[in-house]
């Protein structure tokens, strides 16, 4: 069995699965249940200054579902903790006493003045927390008050607040980033400059779930009106993975440890985040959709996967896929893939044909001889776009196979083993000479 134990910035936990700051980590009752279920750590629901904020007493969550009611995407308009500072502090102190082997990080959100940080950080640390996570990500409500994403969208603010936290904290400081920006590298670099020990990402994405088809209002509403919420759940994972990988492969930021967040639902999602540069992962939506028990499969799934790969620890997986991520301009334009259909596996649905015919390169031929349906790739037209693979309902029925010798029948050009990318392509006006 591979070792799942995790050491993130010196914060130890029996596994790399933490509950992200959010409703599941709102109070001792939930956190105790999570730890009983086997979660490795929590980032406690974000603390703010007293007087504590208030939440709406109506829909705080909504979801995008498949027809069989499987939650694909999720959003929320809940704010940070709506309980008094001191109540949270006492509960955190007790939980850490009861669960010394689990990670307990305090998520915090304070205004942009040093005095607040100077006063509150030491008090929180005194409760026994293992570190801090600075919530510069919440895109709703708090951002209207100049906090959350309003800080996370201004690199100078990030740097400043990080510096204040670092100044008064002795434990590690993680900065949680918002995806509601253009290029995540600017905030990440600001974290580095402010002295952050790590970043965690992503927080939620500005979103409106849908319209109420009866009333023609947005949905859901609090009474007659609603407000945008933060989008999360499985649907946001690809966005999060991109941002994690950008930080992990960027020369300036690649030294920053990453806690991966955004749609982690199964152990495979955890593998995605970790292989693309995260050292651990945080989960919120999946727990809110399925309950804490999912930790069992997260743990055994990841452990079995590591065993299959011959890896002894999570650490060995961290960043494994990062070297495969690059800029488009460095992709080998001499590489030629062609789609190949396994006729024995094909169930003759024809989806590959119609999507290629209607929307791509007219590269899959359909013949029907007396009900005998056959779908054949036309190599002369196939550009290897992978659309057919992306819509095929049968696992491993269509694959992209690289041509390594001969001539590409589409272009009539010989296959070249020489790597050639856009930077030297004759059509590039800015090509390196």
């Amino acid at each position, binding site marked *: 069995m591979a070792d799942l134990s995790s050491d993130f910035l010196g914060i130890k936990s029996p596994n790399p699965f933490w509950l992200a700051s959010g409703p599941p980590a709102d109070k001792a009752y939930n956190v105790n249940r999570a730890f009983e279920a086997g979660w490795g750590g929590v980032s406690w629901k974000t603390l703010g200054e007293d007087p504590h904020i208030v939440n709406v007493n109506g829909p705080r969550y909504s979801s995008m579902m498949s027809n*069989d009611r499987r939650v694909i995407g999720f959003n929320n308009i809940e704010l940070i903790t709506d309980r008094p500072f001191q109540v949270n502090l006492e509960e955190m102190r007790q939980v850490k006493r009861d669960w010394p082997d689990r990670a307990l990080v305090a998520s915090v959100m304070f205004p942009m003045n040093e005095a607040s940080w100077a006063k509150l950080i030491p008090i929180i640390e005194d409760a026994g927390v293992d570190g801090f996570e600075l919530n510069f990500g919440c895109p709703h409500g708090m951002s209207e008050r100049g906090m959350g994403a309003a800080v996370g969208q201004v690199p100078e603010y990030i740097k400043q607040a990080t510096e204040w936290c670092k100044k008064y904290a002795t434990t590690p400081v993680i900065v949680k980033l918002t995806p509601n920006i253009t290029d995540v590298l600017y905030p990440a670099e600001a974290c580095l400059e402010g002295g952050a020990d790590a970043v965690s990402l992503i927080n939620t994405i500005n979103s409106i779930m849908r319209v109420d088809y009866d009333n023609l209002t947005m949905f859901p509403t609090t009474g007659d009106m609603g407000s945008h919420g933060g989008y999360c759940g499985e649907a946001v994972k690809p966005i999060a993975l991109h941002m994690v990988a950008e930080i992990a492969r960027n020369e300036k930021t690649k030294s920053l440890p990453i806690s991966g967040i955004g749609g982690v639902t199964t152990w495979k999602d955890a593998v995605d985040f970790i292989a693309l540069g995260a050292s651990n992962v945080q989960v919120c939506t999946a727990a809110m959709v399925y309950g804490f028990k999912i930790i069992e499969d997260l743990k055994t799934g990841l452990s079995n996967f590591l065993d299959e790969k011959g890896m002894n620890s999570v650490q060995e997986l961290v960043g494994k896929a990062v070297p495969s991520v690059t800029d488009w301009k460095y992709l080998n334009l001499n590489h030629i893939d062609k789609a190949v259909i396994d006729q024995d596996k094909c*169930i*003759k649905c*024809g*989806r590959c044909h119609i999507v290629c015919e209607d929307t791509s390169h007219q590269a899959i031929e*359909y013949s029907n001889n007396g009900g005998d349906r056959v779908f054949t790739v036309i190599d002369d037209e196939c550009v290897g776009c992978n659309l057919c693979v992306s819509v095929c309902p049968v696992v491993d029925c269509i694959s992209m196979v690289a041509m390594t010798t001969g001539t590409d029948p589409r272009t009539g050009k010989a296959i070249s083993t020489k790597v050639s990318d856009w930077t030297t392509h004759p059509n590039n006006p800015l090509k390196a000479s």
Partner: protein
Amino acid sequence: MNDKKLTNEEISIKSHRLGKQEIEDNFKDLHPPLSAIEALIEADRCYFCYDAPCTKACPSDIDVPGFIQSIQSDNLTGAADKILSENIFGGMCARDCPTEVLCQQACVRNDHEEKPVEIGLLQRYATDSVLNNDVQLFSRGADTGKSIAVVGAGPAGISCAHRLAVFGHKITVYEAKEKLGGLNEYGIAAYKTINDFAQQELSYILDIGGITIKTGMQLGKQINLKDLQQQYDAVFLGCGLGTVNQLNLDNENISGVIDAVEYIANLRQANNKEELMVGKNIVVIGGGMTAIDIAVQSKLLGAEQVTIAYRRSKDKMAASEYEQALAKKHDVQMQYNVSPKRLLSADSNVTAMEFDIMQSQNDGSLMASGEKITIKADVIFKAIGQKLVTEGLTENNSLQIKKGRIVVDEHRKTSLAKVWAGGDCVLDGNNLTVSAVQDGKLAAISINETLQGA
């Protein structure tokens, strides 16, 4: 024939074999409708195939992936429109079609996981939504001034009449029976169409207007083809098969030897099925859907022993595998390769049937093996096919008839000017509701084109 008197104990045909509640339970919906969530989940299983094999397999050309996609998106009116504009009896066909040999047999999910999409149940879900909520999707076209006679108010005739009404023609439907619907009303097994669905569907269809109904009008009696040809701009014959084949045995008219079609019609019309007279030991002669229907329904009415006796082997049966399995599930016995030889009786009541055990020859013909078998029976149901009644049809004209059926071309036009035909009465039909509906539709399109050209 022996002719001893039967004692009261021996007279075993009787009513109330089962109680009212038991009968009600037995004649519940064979396939209960899908709930909304079941329909959404099932609709999600559709791969939305290109040039879909299910549509190709549908005799009435329904765009199956198209209507299922509309179910997926909760556009039930759109889904029903896709179905009903190709097949106005989409509701009945959803209940009655042997989908296991049509659309669902063609589903690519059979290759993937041996479990096709439940197309029939989805079609029912979509059509029920407009029928139950009375969402009328069709309106009569502007009056063309043309009038057309339709003979027979079964699926073929009413399908033709409805499409003609959409085109704006005036239609008069002549029906021999008291109620409309043909076999939808008098023939389909009761557990496939509960709650008087045939009439509910007809009322929805006829709501379009422009269709006058005349019941009690039988070819060869109150009406004849020649007169209709003279009175109307076109005639559609959807008269079905008015009579049944006989065994041609001695004493075939003794008590207890019954036409299955007639019994099923009575069963369908019975308000209290427990009052029907039901035999104790029943033998059904035949190998088609009607044989299965009467055998299963006899069981559901409380018959103790039901045997289907078929003169060829299992694989030659016209009834689908699914229907055969349904019979088996209801404990119906199957006796293959037996040909009726003679009826045994007592007191003019049938008591048993003797069969020749048959052997298939290399050329496919059957020959008696010399061995015999006798099966005890107080009721013998004849389900050996139906026949066209030609009275009122073929006098003084050249209407082409072949193998006892009316010959039509691909547009369902007969050999006579101004006369089209469809449904069970035409040659090369497959005796399915869905095909009858398609015949009516195609004939209406052809009639319309012909009249417009005139």
